[in-house]
C-alpha cells in the first residue's frame, strides 16, 4: 500500500512542482478542444469554469526551478515573488495554453498584474473578478451573484458551451467531494498528525489546483484510505499552526524543515482550495449557492475584509480547534497585507499569552539553514517551558 501511496505522492509532486504543467498538457492531449482558465490566488469559483468544460488552473508560483528573466523588466522591484514567477511563466510561453486568465483584487500589486497581462496577451481574456470587500453588506451576495454571472457569460463565449443549472450542480457535487476529502485530510492532521506529514499533506492538497478535479478526487481518496490504515507512533513534538500561506507558498523544503521539528496540525496553505468550508447546496439556484457560500460559509484570509471574521479571532479559533501549542505566523516577503496583519496577529497572540514565532519567507528561498535554526530554537525553548 505504501508503494501505491508513493506513486500517488509522486504524481502530486510532479503536478505541483513541474513548471511545464504536465497534468494540464495530459488533459489537453485527451481533450484537444479543451480550454484552460488560469486564475491567480486566492479564491476563484472553479465550478463555473468546470461546468463549461474548462480546466481551471490555479496559479501557485514556483521555487528556484523557475528563473525570473523576463518578468523583472515588467514589474517594480518591490513586489512579491509569486507575481514574478507567474508572470515569468506567461512571458516565457509556458502558459500559452490559457484561454482566459482571472485575477481577483487581493492586493494592489495583483491588480497591476491584470494590466500587465492585458498589455502582453491582448488576445487572451484577462479579467478581474471583483469579489466583495464589503462582505458583511447585506447587498454583497446579490452583487456577487451578478459578478459570477458576468464571468460565466465570458466563459460561455470562450467555450461555446452554455452553463446550465444541471451542469453547474454536477460541478458543485464534484467539488463538494473534493472539499470533503480535503477536510478529512486536515481532520487527520489535527487528530493524528503523525499519520501524515506536512509536506505530504501539502502536495496531496495543492495538486488539486493543477490537475482535473476528477483525478484529484481519485488520488486523494485513495491516499486517505492508506493514511487512515497506518499505525505510526506519535513522537514527542510540538503541535503548531502555520499561518501565512494564503497566497505565495513557502518552498516545500521549508515545510520539510518545519515538519522535522513540529507537528503542523493546521495551516492556511493554499487556503483558496479550502475557502468554502462546507458543502455547497445543489438545490435551488446553484450560482446563487456558490455566491452565498463565498460569503457565509468560508474561511478567512488577510486579503478579505469581513468584520464578521476578525482575523485574530479566526486564528485563535484555528489554534484552539487544532489544540496547537504554538503558532508560526509567517508572511511572504514584500506582501503588504501579510506583513501588516502580522503585527495584529502578534499583538493578539501576545495578549493571549500564546507562544509564536514571527517570520518572513519567499518561495524562491534556496537556503533553509536559517529557517531550521529558527524553528529548532523556537521549538526547544518551548519544550523546556512545557517540561
Amino acid at each position, binding site marked *: 500500500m505504501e508503494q501505491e501511496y508513493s506513486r500517488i505522492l509522486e504524481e502530486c509532486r510532479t503536478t505541483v512542482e513541474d513548471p511545464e504543467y504536465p497534468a494540464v498538457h495530459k488533459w489537453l492531449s485527451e481533450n484537444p478542444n479543451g480550454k484552460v482558465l488560469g486564475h491567480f490566488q486566492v479564491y476563484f469559483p472553479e465550478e463555473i469554469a468546470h461546468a463549461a468544460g474548462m480546466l481551471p488552473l490555479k496559479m501557485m508560483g514556483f521555487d528556484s526551478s523557475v528563473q525570473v528573466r523576463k518578468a523583472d523588466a515588467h514589474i517594480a522591484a518591490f513586489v512579491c515573488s509569486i507575481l514574478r514567477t507567474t508572470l515569468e511563466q506567461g512571458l516565457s510561453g509556458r502558459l500559452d495554453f490559457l484561454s482566459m486568465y482571472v485575477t481577483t483584487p487581493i492586493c494592489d500589486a495583483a491588480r497591476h498584474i491584470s*494590466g500587465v497581462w492585458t498589455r502582453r496577451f491582448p488576445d487572451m481574456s484577462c479579467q478581474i473578478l471583483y469579489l466583495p470587500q464589503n462582505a458583511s453588506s447585506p447587498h454583497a451576495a446579490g452583487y456577487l451573484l451578478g*459578478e459570477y454571472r458576468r464571468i460565466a457569460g465570458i466563459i460561455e463565449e470562450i467555450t461555446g458551451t452554455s452553463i446550465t443549472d444541471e451542469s453547474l450542480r454536477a460541478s458543485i457535487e464534484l467539488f463538494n467531494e473534493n472539499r470533503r476529502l480535503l477536510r478529512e485530510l486536515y481532520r487527520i492532521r489535527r487528530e493524528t498528525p503523525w499519520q501524515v506529514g506536512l509536506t505530504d499533506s501539502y502536495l496531496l492538497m495543492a495538486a488539486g489546483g493543477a490537475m482535473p478535479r476528477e483525478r484529484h478526487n481519485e488520488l486523494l481518496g485513495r491516499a486517505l484510505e492508506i493514511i487512515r490504515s497506518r499505525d505510526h507512533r506519535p513522537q514527542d513534538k510540538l503541535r503548531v499552526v502555520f499561518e501565512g500561506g494564503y497566497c505565495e507558498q513557502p518552498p516545500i523544503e521549508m515545510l520539510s524543515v518545519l515538519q522535522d521539528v513540529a507537528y503542523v496540525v493546521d495551516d492556511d496553505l493554499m487556503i483558496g482550495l479550502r475557502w468554502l468550508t462546507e458543502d455547497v447546496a445543489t438545490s435551488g439556484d446553484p450560482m446563487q449557492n456558490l455566491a452565498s457560500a463565498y460569503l457565509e460559509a468560508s474561511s478567512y484570509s488577510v486579503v478579505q475584509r469581513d468584520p464578521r471574521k476578525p482575523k485574530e479571532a479566526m486564528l485563535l479559533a484555528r489554534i484552539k480547534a487544532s489544540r496547537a501549542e504554538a503558532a508560526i505566523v509567517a508572511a511572504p516577503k514584500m506582501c503588504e497585507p501579510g506583513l501588516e496583519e502580522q503585527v495584529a496577529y502578534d499583538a493578539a497572540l501576545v495578549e493571549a499569552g500564546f507562544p509564536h514565532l514571527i517570520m518572513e519567507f519567499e518561495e524562491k528561498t534556496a537556503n533553509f539553514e536559517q529557517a531550521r535554526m529558527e524553528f529548532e530554537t523556537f521549538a526547544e525553548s518551548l519544550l523546556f517551558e512545557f517540561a
Partner: protein
Amino acid sequence: MEPHNIAIRPALSQAGNSREASRSLISKWWERLGDADATATPVANTFVMGSLAEVLNTFDIPMMFPEIAALQTAIKGKSMDYLLAAEDIGYSPDICGYVKVDIGLHNTGREHPLGKYPKPSLVVSSNMCNTYIKWSEVWERQYGCPVFVLDLPGWRGTGFRYDMSSDTFKNDVAYVESQIRDLIDLAAEVSGRPFDIDKLREILGRVNRMSELYGAILATNKHRPAPFNALTEGINYMGIANILRGQPEGVEFMETALAELEERVAYGVGAIPDERFRLLLVGTACYTNFREFVGMFERWKGVFAASEYMSYAGGGIDRGIRYDLSRPIESLAEQILITAQPSMSGIFYSHDWQARVVEEYGLDGICFHGVKSCRTTSAGLPDSRDWLLNNASIPGLFIQSDLVDKRLWSEAQMRNRIDAFFESLESRRVQAGV
C-alpha cells in the same frame, strides 16, 4: 548701440493668490481638526480616492486625510520620526510609508507638525487601494471606531468599457447605492444629526462646479508654456480639491486658481522660465526630497504639464462629475462608478490614458516614478513604460524612491538617470531637426 525692443509685461494682478489661499485654507483645516478633541467633535478618517466627502460634509463631520497629513510630515522633514516609531513596534520596512507615518503619529502623542492629530470616530475606507482597508483596521483595533468600507467594483480587464445600460453597470450601481445608504445611516449615528437630503444636494452641486473648474485648471496646461507645474502647484490644487470637496471655500479656491492661471496664459507666463521640455508624471513625487526632485527636472527646463496624480487622487474630480441633483443618492452612486473608480482603475490599464495625455498636452515624454510605499501607483510602471515606448514611441524615464522614507532616496543615482533621460530627449530633437 542698437536700441533693444523690450516688452514690459505688466505685473500679474492674480499672482500668488492661489498659493496664499491654499496656505490659509490648509491652516484652517488643521485648526478645525485640532479642536476636535477639545470639543468632542467626531472626526472621520477618509482617503483621497473615494472619500465620500459628499456624505460626510452633509453631516458636518470634519475629515482627516491621513495621506495628506503623512506627505506634509515629509515636506516638513519629520516623516522619519514617525515612520521609525511604527517600525519600532513591528511594522515592516516593506509596507506603505504613509501607513507607518500615521501609526507613528498615533503612537507618539498625536503631535503633527501642523497641528493636533485627531482620533477618528469613524473611518470611511474603500477598496480603491487595498492598503486603505488594512490601514483602517489598524484604527479599528486601536480606537474601536466603526469602519465603513466602500466597495467599488472596478474595471474588469480586457476590453472593459462601462456601458450604462449593461447588467454589470446596473449590478454595480445597485451595490454601491446600497452601501451609500448604509453610510448615511452610520454617519447620522456617529454625528447625532439627521440626514438632510437638500444639504446633500447643495454639496453635490458644488462638487459639480468644482469638477468643472478643476477640469479647466488642468486644461490651461495644454498651453505653451505650461502655466503651472503639475508636480508642485498641482499638489496644492489636488489637496484643496480633497479637503474642501463640495464646500463653498473649495469652489472659491478653484475660481481663484483658474483666474490666476488664465492670467498667466494670457501673458505667456510659464511655471518655469524658458520651458524646453514638457512631461507627464506617472506615480507620485518624493516628498522627503521634494525640492531636489523638482529641481532635477527644472535644471533641464523641464516642466510637468500633467500628472497622473492629479487624476487618480481626486476621486474622479478631473473626469467631469455631473451629479443629477434631482436624485442625489442614486446619482452619487453612478458618478462614483463612472468618475472616481475609473480614475483608480485607470492606473492598472494606464497606457491608453497616458498616450492620450501625451498627445493632448503636447508632451515630450513620461517620467514614471515608482515608490516602494505604494504598490497601487507603482507596481506595473515598468511594463507601461516598455509598452508605450514600443507601441507608441513615447520616451519614458523609470526612477524609484519613496513618498516619505528618506532611506530610499539616492540623489546621485536619481540625478544620473534624469540627466541621461533629458540628454536622450535632446538627442531625439536633434535627430528630428527640431
